C-alpha cells in the first residue's frame, strides 16, 4: 500500500511532528559519534539511543506507508549494528555513510507530506548496502537474520537491488507481448511481399533486418522473463513454521527438508504454487506421517521426514514432495473408487492416480486442518491450471511422493502452429514429442479407434477435426500427425498442415467461452488472426472417442 492510499495518511502532520525531532536527534548524534570516534574519545554509548530513535522512525514510517523513509531508517539501523559489531576503527567508511544517511533521513521526514523523492537517497542506499555487505562478510546481524526468516522479501542487504512494483513487470511483459505479435506480423507481411518481389533490390537487406529484429526480440524476451523470476525458496520459506503448527495440532513430529530453493520461477507461477504445495504438505503431515508411537512400532525414527525439492529442466521445473510415512493403501483406494463409481481409472493409469478424483479421502479422521474442504482434486486442478502435471508414487509402509512438473512461465509459450480445417491452433512445444507425416499404411484402426506405429510402439491417433469439432475427416485425409506427450501418455493428433514454430503470448480464456476441455487459452498470430492454444495435458486425460 502506498502512502497515498494508506489508512493513516491524514495523520501526516502528526507523523512529522513525532518523527522529525527523532530523525534530527539521530542525525546529530551520528555526527557526534563520527567526531568522537575519529578523535578516539569513545562515543559508542550513543549507538543505543540512536538505534531506538531510528527504530521508532522506521516503525512509524511503515505504518504510514512511507516506504522510502522506512528503508532509509532500516539501512541506518543495519549500519549501526554493523558498526557495533566491529568495535573500534572506521569500519569501511561507515561513519561517513551514517552521517550522510542521517542527514538524508531528516530531509525525507521533513518532506514526508510532499510527493517526490529526496535526491541522493537511492545512491546512498546502494552504497550503504555495499558497505554493510563488505564489512560483515558472512556475518549477519540479528536484523538481517530476522528479515531473512521473514521470507527473504527484503533483499536490502544485497547490492545493486532495486524494488519494482510487480505490476510494472506485468506491463512490461504485456508490451513485450505486443512487440512479439507485431514482429511476427512484420515477418509475415515480408514473406508475402518477398514471394512476389523475389530479388528486387532491398529485399535481401530487409530479410536480414527482419532476422536481426527477431533475434533481438528473442533476447529481449529472455531478459524480461528473467526479471520476473524469483527463487522457489520464497515459497518454501514459510512452510516450516506452518507445518510445525499442523504437526503439533495432530500430535506428530515432522521435519521438513528442502533443496533446490534457488530454482527460479516466474512470480506469477510462484504466486499460485504455494497453496497446492501447502495442501500436499499438510496432507502428508496429517494423513501420511504416522504418530510417534506407530513409527516406533514400525522401526522408523519418531520424527517423520518431509522432503521438498525443485530442479529446473529446459523450460520446466520438476518439484518432488515426499514423505517417509505409511504410503497409500491401494486396496482402500480401489474400494473407495468403487464406492464413488469411478471404475479402476482407465487403461494406462495406476490406482494411485485415483486419489486426484473429486470426493476422495480414505482418512478416518477428517481433521480440521486437512479437511478444509480441499481435496487432492483441487490440488490437481490448480497444478493443471498452471499448465503443469502431477503424479504420485507410493509404497505401502515406506512413504508417498508427489511429482509436479510446472512450466517456468505462464505468459509466453513456445508453440507449434498447426492447421486443421482452415483453423490454426498453437500446440505448446513442451508437450510435443514429434511431428510425423501421416502415411496411410502406417495408420490402422482397432476397436473403432485410430492407432499408429510410432517409435516401435502403438499410440492412439485422433483426428484433429473430430477433437476440435470442426467436422469429420477431410477426403484427402490429414497429412501429418503431432504426437503430444505428457505424464507418460502419448497420442497422435491428425492435422492438415504444419505452419511453423512461434512464441505465442498467452491470453486467457474469456469466461464467455465457457470451459473448453481441449483449449487452454488464446493468442494472436502474426497475421492478426486469433488462434486457440491446445491443452495437451487435458487432451491426454480424456478417453479417446470412438
Amino acid at each position, binding site marked *: 500500500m502506498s502512502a497515498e492510499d494508506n489508512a493513516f495518511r491524514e495523520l501526516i502532520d502528526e507523523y512529522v511532528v513525532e518523527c522529525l525531532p527523532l530523525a534530527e536527534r539521530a542525525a546529530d548524534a551520528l555526527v557526534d559519534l563520527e567526531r568522537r570516534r575519529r578523535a578516539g574519545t569513545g562515543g559508542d554509548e550513543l549507538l543505543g539511543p540512536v538505534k531506538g530513535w531510528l527504530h521508532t522512525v522506521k516503525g512509524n514510517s511503515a505504518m504510514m506507508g512511507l516506504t522510502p523513509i522506512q528503508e532509509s531508517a532500516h539501512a541506518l539501523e543495519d549500519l549501526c549494528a554493523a558498526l557495533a559489531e566491529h568495535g573500534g576503527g572506521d569500519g569501511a567508511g561507515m561513519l561517513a555513510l551514517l552521517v550522510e544517511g542521517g542527514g538524508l533521513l531528516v530531509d525525507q521526514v521533513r518532506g514526508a507530506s510532499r510527493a517526490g523523492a529526496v535526491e541522493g537517497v537511492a545512491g546512498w542506499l546502494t552504497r550503504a548496502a555495499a558497505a554493510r555487505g563488505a564489512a560483515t562478510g558472512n556475518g549477519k546481524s540479528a536484523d538481517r537474520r530476522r528479515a531473512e526468516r521473514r521470507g527473504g522479501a527484503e533483499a536490502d542487504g544485497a547490492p545493486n537491488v532495486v524494488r519494482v512494483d510487480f505490476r510494472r513487470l506485468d506491463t512490461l511483459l504485456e508490451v513485450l507481448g505486443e512487440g512479439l*505479435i507485431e514482429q511476427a506480423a512484420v515477418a509475415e507481411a515480408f514473406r508475402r511481399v518477398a514471394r512476389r518481389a523475389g530479388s528486387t533490390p532491398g529485399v535481401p537487406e530487409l530479410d536480414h533486418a527482419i532476422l536481426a529484429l527477431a533475434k533481438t526480440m528473442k533476447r529481449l524476451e529472455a531478459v524480461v522473463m528473467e526479471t520476473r523470476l524469483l527463487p522457489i525458496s520464497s515459497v518454501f520459506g514459510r512452510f516450516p513454521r506452518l507445518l510445525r503448527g499442523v504437526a503439533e495440532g495432530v500430535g506428530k513430529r515432522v521435519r521438513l527438508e528442502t533443496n533446490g530453493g534457488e530454482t527460479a520461477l516466474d512470480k506469477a507461477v510462484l504466486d499460485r504454487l504455494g497453496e497446492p504445495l501447502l495442501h500436499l504438505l499438510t496432507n502428508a503431515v496429517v494423513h501420511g506421517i504416522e504418530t510417534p508411537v506407530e513409527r516406533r512400532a514400525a522401526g522408523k525414527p519418531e520424527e517423520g521426514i518431509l522432503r521438498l525439492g525443485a530442479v529446473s529442466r529446459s523450460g520446466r521445473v520438476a518439484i518432488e514432495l515426499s514423505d517417509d510415512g505409511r504410503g497409500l493403501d491401494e486396496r482402500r483406494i480401489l474400494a473407495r473408487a468403487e464406492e464413488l463409481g469411478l471404475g479402476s481409472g482407465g487403461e494406462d493409469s495406476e490406482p494411485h492416480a485415483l486419489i486426484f478424483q473429486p470426493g476422495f479421502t480414505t482418512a478416518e479422521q477428517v481433521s480440521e486442518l486437512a479437511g478444509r474442504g480441499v481435496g487432492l482434486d483441487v490440488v490437481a486442478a490448480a497444478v493443471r491450471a498452471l499448465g503443469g502435471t502431477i503424479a504420485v508414487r507410493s509404497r505401502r509402509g515406506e512413504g508417498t511422493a508427489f511429482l509436479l512438473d510446472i512450466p517456468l512461465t505462464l505468459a509466453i509459450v513456445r508453440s507449434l502452429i498447426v492447421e486443421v480445417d482452415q483453423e490454426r491452433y498453437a500446440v505448446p512445444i513442451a508437450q510435443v514429442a514429434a511431428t510425423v507425416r501421416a502415411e496411410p499404411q502406417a495408420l490402422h484402426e482397432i476397436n473403432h479407434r485410430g492407432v499408429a506405429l510410432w517409435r516401435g510402439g502403438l499410440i492412439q491417433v485422433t483426428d484433429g477435426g473430430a477433437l476440435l469439432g470442426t467436422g469429420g475427416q477431410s477426403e484427402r485425409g490429414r497429412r501429418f500427425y503431432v504426437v503430444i506427450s505428457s505424464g507418460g501418455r502419448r497420442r497422435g493428433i491428425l492435422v492438415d498442415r504444419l505452419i511453423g514454430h512461434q512464441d505465442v503470448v498467452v491470453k486467457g480464456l474469456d469466461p464467455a*467461452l465457457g*470451459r473448453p*476441455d481441449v483449449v487452454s487459452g488464446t493468442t494472436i498470430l502474426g497475421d*492478426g*488472426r486469433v488462434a486457440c492454444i491446445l491443452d495437451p495435458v487435458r487432451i491426454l486425460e480424456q478417453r479417446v472417442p470412438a
Partner: protein
Amino acid sequence: MSDALLRFADELGAAGPAEVAAPVAELHLVTFTLDREAYGVPVQRVREVIRVGEITRVPQAPEHVRGVTNLRGRILPVVELRSRLGLTPAVLTPRSRIVVTEAHGRILGLLVDAVLQVTRIPADTVQPAPEDIRTPEADWLAGVARRPDRLLILLDLDAVLLLQR
C-alpha cells in the same frame, strides 16, 4: 452533478430502456438489423462498432458464441446474435458488423447483419410486446417502439449476453 442525476445514470446502465421511469423522456439507442427486423440497444452499453475480420472458432464454446476475434490486440468473444434470438446463423456480407458491448463487467461482440444508426426516440413510443409474442425463452425482449417508418425491437442486453443458464 446532483444525486438524483447520478442515480438515474446508474439505473440507465443497469436496467433496460423500457423499465426506467426517468425525468428524461428519451431513449438513446444504437439500431441494427437481423433478417428483416430492426433492433435497438442502449447507446451507453455500446463501446464501438467494427467491421467483421476473421472470427476464430473456439472448440466447445457455449451455444451462440460464434468465436473470437482480434480487437486491437485484445481477444473479443463474438456472440451469434441471430441464433441467440432464434434465427439461423449469419451469413457474412460486407454490411455485417460487430457491435462491441459491455456486459457483466466484460466486453462482448454482437454479430449483426447491418448497423442502421444511433438515434433518440421518445420514451412514450415504447410499449411491452403483445402477450402472445412474449414467450419464456424470449427473455431478451425488453419492449417494442413504434417509429414512423418501422417497428423497433428493444433488446435487454444483460439477458441477451447471459450465455450460461
